[in-house]
């Protein structure tokens, strides 16, 4: 039960900045996901919280107490490493038991055995006790690494890309397991990843990090539907959000977004127009629309835009259609059972309530507000 706060942390390595005034605060017992591209400073953030790296400036605060000077072995944290960092000369059992053998713990052998058994059974690694880390698969290593972190019963879990090096199927299984592990649910966890699926699936809240700064903090829904800027919008969602250069055209009572490169206009409602006018939007905009928010209109003549199909990829659970509208391509997420002939005309509609408006100069979401 710990609230972790990171206040204005600056850290650089040999003059190369890694963290530039990083600032965020978790809630108690929250699963907090740090999502960002590689090199954004995610791992450094965890190492600063764990005390493995000293910040050049700023504070790390646990429950209101500044702990900058506390050495890592005295902080109530457990950490899993991206490389797993299992001790190669120890058996799986010894790896798991290692935190219990730390000086000052002095637990009797039977107690150690019990606690290791409990965790190992939960993670289904109790049949591997006598193996060395070199003899384990990636998924097994990951579970041993997680077990070693959990066995200490830390107040704060720090997890560095725990699923990035295991193959897709095991990643799926382990992700489900992360949901089920009570220890993780009841403690404050900070989970680092570059995979937005993990972030959306696991996070109570997600912090988007880039170049050593927090870009946006919010619930998965907020991050997905109300991205603060183009960077966040592109960070989540696969395929990427469609970004179109648009001009807001007002013709009497009718307002629409003209997309010059695509040769069509998207009509917008009076209410949306009002909201846009309230924030004084510039005439030229960048409009974002997620592939799932573009639909096929079977009556091509009545559709908002008439485009030509390019490539259709049916993936089993979803179908990905790429269409060409004059000079640009758009991506659509559709039912995989559909079929399309290449280069045939098709009509598409846009869910106008899902449009996201960005300032083309600053890349910021024009309608974004804190809540």
């Amino acid at each position, binding site marked *: 039960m710990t609230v972790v706060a990171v206040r204005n942390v600056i850290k650089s390595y040999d003059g190369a900045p890694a963290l530039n005034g990083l600032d965020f605060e978790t809630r108690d017992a929250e699963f907090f996901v740090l999502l960002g591209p590689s090199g954004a400073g995610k791992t450094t953030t965890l190492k600063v919280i764990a005390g*493995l790296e000293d910040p050049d400036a700023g504070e790390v605060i646990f429950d209101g107490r500044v702990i900058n000077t506390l050495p*890592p072995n005295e902080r109530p944290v457990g950490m899993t490493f991206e490389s797993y960092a299992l001790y190669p000369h120890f058996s799986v059992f010894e790896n798991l038991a290692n*935190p219990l053998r730390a000086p000052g*713990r002095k637990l009797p052998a039977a107690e150690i055995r019990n606690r290791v058994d409990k965790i190992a059974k939960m993670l289904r690694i109790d049949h591997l006790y006598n193996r060395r880390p070199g003899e384990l698969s990636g998924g097994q290593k990951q579970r041993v690494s997680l077990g070693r972190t959990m066995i200490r019963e830390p107040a704060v879990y720090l997890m560095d890309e725990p699923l990035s090096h295991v193959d897709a199927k095991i990643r799926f299984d382990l992700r489900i397991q992360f949901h089920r592990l009570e220890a993780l649910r009841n403690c404050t966890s900070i989970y680092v990843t570059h995979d937005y699926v993990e972030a959306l699936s696991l996070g109570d809240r997600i912090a988007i990090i880039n170049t050593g700064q927090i870009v946006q903090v919010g619930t998965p829904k907020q991050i997905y539907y109300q991205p603060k800027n183009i960077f966040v919008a592109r960070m989540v969602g696969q395929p990427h959000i469609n970004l179109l250069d648009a001009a807001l055209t007002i013709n009497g009572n009718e307002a629409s977004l003209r997309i010059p490169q695509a040769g069509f206009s998207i009509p917008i409602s009076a209410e949306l127009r009002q909201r846009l006018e309230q924030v004084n939007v510039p005439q030229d905009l960048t409009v974002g629309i997620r592939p799932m928010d573009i639909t096929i209109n079977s009556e091509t003549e009545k559709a908002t835009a008439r485009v030509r199909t390019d490539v259709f990829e049916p993936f089993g659970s979803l179908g990905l259609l790429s269409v060409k509208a004059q000079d640009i391509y758009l991506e659509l997420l559709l039912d995989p059972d559909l079929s399309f002939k290449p280069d045939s005309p098709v009509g598409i509609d846009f869910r106008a309530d899902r449009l996201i408006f960005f300032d083309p100069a600053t890349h910021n979401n024009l309608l974004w507000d804190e809540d």
Partner: protein
Amino acid sequence: MATANSNSRKRKVFFQKLVVNILLLVCFAFLLFPVFWVTTMAFKSHDDILTWPPKFVFKPTLENFQNITTAIRTYRVGAVSSDFLKGFGNSLVVTTSALLLSLLTGIPAAYALGRFRFKGKNDIAFTFLTFRFAPELLVIIPIYLIFQKIGLYDTYIGLVWVYQLITMPMVIWILMSYFEDVSVELEQASLVDGFSLFHTFRRIILPLAKPGIAAASLLAFIYAWNNFIFALILGSSKVQPVTVSALKFITAEKLRYGDIAAACVLAAIPILILALYAQRYMVRGLSLGAVKK
């Protein structure tokens, strides 16, 4: 066609292998012949050694070994103390102490140089290396004068100290790369597990660097054991190691080839034992250190 082709290729491969093996045999013979010859000399009588043409078949004798292991022998011209056994003991004492001292101080030094970034790190590492490639003769006279002044001449401490020039760079430079190769995250995992840096070093880092320690110890031991010039100049009868005591077999009466050969054979035994013992670490160790996984 195909068969003819594969036949000619097979023949080509066969001849290539033949040439390579013959060349290897020549190198092997060239390198090992002196060792073989000294070993046979050790078992020959003085007359057999000096005959021409050299004898490959002879009646082996242990006379030479008896000569050198008997503490004091009386020759026709005066009495000469061979002191070989004492030299052997001195060698063991000085070399082992020098190695232990080097490990004790060199392991932490190598760890610091391999792991941490600090000002002047490369200069310090390079300075240690220069100890190794600077010729001993360059420093021997000043060291001799200093040792005379401060009373370290002909003492074990003095020799152990000066042997650090040989063993320390070896330990530091070999282990540095080993410590660099131990993943920082292992160390950090242990810190997060609740261990202090000292415990982490003992429990995680040292065991992982064991092959490197074995390799470095073996090489350092061999170089220190084989040292001649430091021991010759800086020590007298009290601390003389085996390399120097073999000189005593050059007597006024004659060059005692058989005794010298026997001394060589005996002196090589500790190194052989150590090499056989450390071999498995060595081969694995040297390649592990060289190739990053």
